[in-house]
């Protein structure tokens, strides 16, 4: 007997997948694939402190703390990049990631003492726990996704120029001063909104896997972004069902009723497998394309 997987879990995973496909496309295009990892780890102390201060387990309340911490991380990254003796981008990212996460771990210790029993709840944000996903969390994700898509739609042209040639963009009259901040804003909010699904540690895998897979199939940024969102949605919806099938299979053949698979890592692994397959596919087709290219190289 196969139990129907939780509908909130499936919807949540699918929405998070679409969201990460969208945000990841921009991170990858700006050569900032690691920024997502930094922001998710930087959100951790905010989440823990929000729980410690308010005692609330409401995701909305915790998300505000996480978003504030994410914004602080963005501002610190920017600040470290200024001045004459500036720190190189990779070192900056490493510094902020470990610094913020370190504060988060310290805070976790304190919150464990002051609010016993909250560790389990916090852990679901560290590694993701789809089973604990509530419809209110799903609504937060849906709303974030809607806002992100609207913003990207309205600023599409400026965003593509920002990804391709940010310096030239600043010399043209068409640019909007606010676009980079808006993009960073939806990145922070989107990452936090998806934390219940993938968790702090695994978010960045999805942010990279989905656009990398999409990139193999297209040379257009718009098509790639939509493809990444589609992959994210489909894989997100499939993962909880896959988990359900594997769990019931294990139960049937081994009689092990305690078998539990975490959905977040399964989601990440399916994403990573897709990316690996897509890259292998590209390398395989490249060999046939080389002869075609040389005939076109006349210009």
């Amino acid at each position, binding site marked *: 007997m196969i139990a129907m997987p939780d509908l909130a879990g499936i919807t949540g995973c699918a929405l998070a997948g679409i969201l990460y496909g969208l945000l990841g496309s921009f991170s990858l295009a700006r050569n900032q694939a690691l920024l997502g990892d930094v922001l998710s780890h930087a959100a951790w102390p905010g989440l823990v402190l929000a729980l410690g201060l308010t005692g609330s387990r409401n995701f909305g309340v915790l998300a505000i703390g996480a978003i504030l911490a994410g914004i602080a991380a963005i501002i610190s990254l920017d600040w470290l990049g200024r001045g004459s003796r500036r720190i190189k981008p990779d070192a900056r990212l490493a510094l902020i990631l470990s610094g913020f996460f370190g504060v988060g771990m310290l805070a976790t210790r304190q919150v464990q003492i002051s609010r016993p029993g909250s560790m389990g709840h916090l852990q679901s944000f560290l590694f993701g726990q789809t089973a604990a996903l509530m419809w209110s969390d799903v609504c937060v994700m849906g709303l974030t996704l809607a806002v992100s898509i609207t913003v990207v739609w309205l600023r599409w*042209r400026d965003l*593509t*120029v920002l990804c*391709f*040639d940010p310096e030239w963009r600043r010399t*043209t*009259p068409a640019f909007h001063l606010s676009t980079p901040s808006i993009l960073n804003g939806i990145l922070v909010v989107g990452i936090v909104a998806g934390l219940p699904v993938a968790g702090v540690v695994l978010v960045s895998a999805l942010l990279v896997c989905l656009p990398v897979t999409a*990139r193999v199939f297209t040379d*257009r940024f718009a098509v790639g972004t939509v493809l990444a969102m589609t992959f994210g949605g489909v894989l997100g919806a499939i993962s909880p069902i896959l988990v359900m099938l594997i769990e019931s299979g294990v139960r049937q053949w081994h009689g092990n009723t305690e078998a539990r698979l975490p959905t977040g890592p399964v989601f990440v692994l399916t994403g990573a497998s897709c990316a690996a397959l897509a890259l292998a596919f590209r390398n395989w087709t490249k060999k046939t394309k080389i002869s075609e290219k040389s005939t076109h190289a006349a*210009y």
Partner: protein
Amino acid sequence: MSMGNPMTPALEIEDMTVVLGERTALCDLDVLVPQGCLCAVVGPNGAGKTTLIRTVVGLVQPISGRIAVLGETFAKTCQRVAYVPQRSGLDWDFPATVQDVALMGTHHSIPWWKSLGGKEKDKALAALDAVGLSPLRDRPISNLSGGQQQRVLLARALAQEPELFLLDEPFQGVDAASEQAIMATLTRIRDAGKTVVVVHHDLHAVAEQFDRVIFLNVRKIADGPVQLVMTPENLKHTFGARVGFDERAQVAR
């Protein structure tokens, strides 16, 4: 778009000093480029040629001095100026086609809530045509040679329909066919009454094809019409004592 007074200099810089980190990149610079000429900026590596262009378009802030672009501050005239960056600074793996990049030059001509229409596409295509790239308009930019990449960037600048073009090292690592195509385009732009300022390495090409030249080595060594300022003394002061015109030109090639 108004052309403005043709007597206004395209570029006028007074007493400009630029410091990058702890290094003085440009010192007490005075430069004047009249409209309607083809002007080269030459100097050894680290002379501040790139910094000069980047300061004019507002990417670097000078610590002192005054810059007038077409008679006004760059913030006021940026609509009439096109900057062509060094192609090596860009990510050519970005998923876009040749036409997509040329279209970027038309973005400022329409408000952000409207989508690109036929008029913008025509403009972009005309620009690609001018640099000889219209047959490649649907090609992904990751599949271009260095010369083709440079021509795409020039097409994007053409699509901006500016009066002043500022090009940073457009001939760096470019094949002979592309070099000819770019030079022909720049000459046509000049013949249409517009101004072109180019950071250049090839002194022979400058002597043969340009109207004016600015010799730069942190300070300005000389600037003026090529036939007047292309002298052994100026070359010596700019590039160092032992380098003569012919030797230098060969090194530059």
